[in-house]
């Protein structure tokens, strides 16, 4: 019988063979392990290899580079922009919603989200991918990519369309009331807009230098570094990567004086200077979409809407005085100039927002954001972010600026 035959030959040779077989079995697991190793190495190395170092470009002075930006006349482009904003605030999506609902019936109440100004608050935190396309003065498109949805703002001739694919709602207005220029002010999305804003603020208080080169979206670029000389400002430095060929700003980075990650980092991840397809700018409202007309009467109402929507957090969120001047309460003043300028206005004696006003979770959330301070001016609350600080005194004055807390208190004292 076969089984018996193997019984008496159970020798050392068999044991040896068994061990060898076991080794062979174990050896097979080398294959998956290798696959994992190769994948890990590829993920780790490819970005490092792709980063082929800074490109060699002829030297250029800061003045020449700024002129190059000013002279830049890019009419046609399309590309993908990634914007990362880290103001040091929690995710504002939920807050905006709770504030919106707490602020009572907001406008028509149908929650139409195709209104461009409503989308602005979304950009205030987190990472967002935008697509931009432009073909001359009259055709521009900006799309905010969301999960399985997209918000597009399309300017084509005299029409400006906002389309929110998630809710299938459309916002429409005409360019004569809300021309391209104004839209740019509201949505400083492309690096070009951001860089222009930064350069506008530059004067004697600022050092502007060209520091080396970089590669952005596969293009060679100069790095323009803008450093404030003021000590009171929270702005550390601003870096703008400028395309060496076209002079188009490709990347904008704002680092705070306190160090750490950039507060705003906006840059092209992919860019092309070819003319985008004409169909990109064609828009007809889809069948059954809710169309909100933003004409004469409504155009003034729409921003008001947005104000309801985010009035409270707007006070300490607003990026600049321009925005405040447009949407904020009357009586805006700017103290000082340059980087440590402080915008101030009177809310009309309401004091710290929220609490009972906003109520509920949002109210206690707002309270937890602020630091109580006191000085010659009396009592107040300071709301801090990594870039913008705001002081709201108990008698209803608001001081906002990209400056330190001490500078705000000093300004309030001086204003008393």
């Amino acid at each position, binding site marked *: 019988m*076969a089984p018996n035959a193997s019984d008496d030959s159970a020798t050392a040779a068999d044991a040896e063979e068994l061990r060898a077989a076991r080794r*062979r*079995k174990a050896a*097979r*697991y080398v*294959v*998956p392990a290798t*696959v*994992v190793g190769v*994948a890990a190495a590829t993920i780790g190395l490819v970005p490092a290899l792709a980063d082929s170092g800074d490109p060699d470009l002829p030297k250029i002075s800061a003045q020449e580079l700024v002129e190059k930006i000013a002279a830049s006349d890019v009419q046609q482009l399309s590309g*993908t922009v990634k914007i990362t904003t880290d103001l040091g605030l929690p995710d504002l999506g939920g807050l905006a919603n709770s504030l919106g609902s707490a602020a009572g019936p907001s406008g028509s109440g149908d*929650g139409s*989200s195709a209104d461009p100004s409503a989308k602005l608050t979304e950009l205030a935190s987190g990472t967002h*991918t935008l*697509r931009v396309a432009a073909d001359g003065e009259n055709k521009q498109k900006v*799309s905010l*990519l969301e*999960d*399985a*949805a*997209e918000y*597009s703002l*399309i300017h084509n001739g005299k029409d400006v*369309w906002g*389309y*929110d*694919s*998630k*809710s*299938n709602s459309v916002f429409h207005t005409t360019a004569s009331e809300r021309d391209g220029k104004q839209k740019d002010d509201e949505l400083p999305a492309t690096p070009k807009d951001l860089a222009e804003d930064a350069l506008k603020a530059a004067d004697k208080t600022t050092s502007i230098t060209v520091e080396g080169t970089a590669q952005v979206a596969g293009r060679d670029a100069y790095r323009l570094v803008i450093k404030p000389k003021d000590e009171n400002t929270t702005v550390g430095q601003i870096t703008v990567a400028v395309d060496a060929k076209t002079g188009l700003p490709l990347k904008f980075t704002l680092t705070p004086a306190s160090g750490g990650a950039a507060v705003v980092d906006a840059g092209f991840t992919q860019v092309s200077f070819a003319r985008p*397809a004409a*169909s*990109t700018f*064609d*828009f*007809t409202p*889809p*069948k*059954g*979409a*809710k169309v909100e007309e933003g004409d004469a009467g409504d155009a003034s109402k729409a921003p008001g809407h947005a104000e309801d929507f985010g009035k409270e957090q707007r006070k300490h969120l607003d990026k600049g005085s321009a925005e405040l001047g447009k949407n904020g309460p009357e009586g805006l003043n700017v103290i000082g100039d340059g980087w440590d300028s402080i915008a101030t206005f009177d809310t009309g004696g309401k004091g710290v927002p929220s609490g009972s006003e906003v109520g509920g979770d949002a109210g206690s959330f707002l309270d937890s954001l602020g630091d109580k301070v006191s000085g010659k001016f009396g009592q107040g609350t300071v709301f801090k972010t990594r870039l913008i600080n705001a002081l709201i005194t108990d008698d209803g004055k608001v001081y906002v600026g990209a400056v330190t807390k001490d500078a705000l208190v000093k300004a309030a004292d001086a204003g008393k």
Partner: protein
Amino acid sequence: MSQAEEITPKGRGELRDQPPPAVSRRTTFYGTLFRNELRTTFRRWRTLALLAVLAAVPILVGIAVKIETGGDDPSGPSGNGPAFISQITNNGLFLVFTALAATLPFFLPMAIGVIAGDAIAGEANAGTLRYLLVAPAGRTRLLLTKYATVMTFCLVATLVVAVSALATGALLFPLGDLTTISGTRITFAEGLGRALLIALVVAASLVGVAALGLFVSTLTNSGIAAMATTVGLLITVQILDQIPQLHALQPYFFSHYWLSFADLMREPVYWDDLVRNLGLQALYAAVFGSAAWARFTAKDITA
């Protein structure tokens, strides 16, 4: 060298007198085993029930949307719910995308988990695995055949959802030119093409789960245990994918880029996440496929 070949000469004495196995078995066309596997899999009531459940999802979604909007109201339900749901009332084709978005996170991978988990462990459980190995195909080929069968099921399951959704959408809602999520318009034919492309991408998104399930299936002799483990892993990964503190790990979860198929509905198509998804699925298939091979070819088949 494989156990399968040794069985014949070492068997009972009387077998030795019989002629060696027909030569034709050795030169068997590679497809035969695959075809038999397909037939076995798709004839099972279990498989048919899974497909029926998948086909029912788009029908239920379609009817729910139809009832909610009362048929006349042209504005769809508001933005909450699966992707694209607000556009369904205006164009039935969007039901395909909504149905795929609704089934991809759970129903589809669960069905795949059941089929993949059952592939090897189920045979072992039923005691049929060694008979399968008697066929002179070799273990590697059997494993490849099993994996090909599971992937075929991925494709069939996805197409069942898509076709059922298209039929429901065509019955309940109007069809016609559609607006991409970027706001541009494409013709219905192009929309159909994109729907097919999306179905293929969704099927490809399941390749990783299929490989994982197959690997789990080689670890145990219990079909139920393999299915439960695969589906359990699936749920665990989906939960981990929601935890913000793990954002550094999340890009490596097989389910992380699943919903990127919606990027095919942008104009122009946004490829970044789609490519990442397909690359990740290929990586999972390579890692767990080879791990399954290492395990299965070295395993003692006792049942």
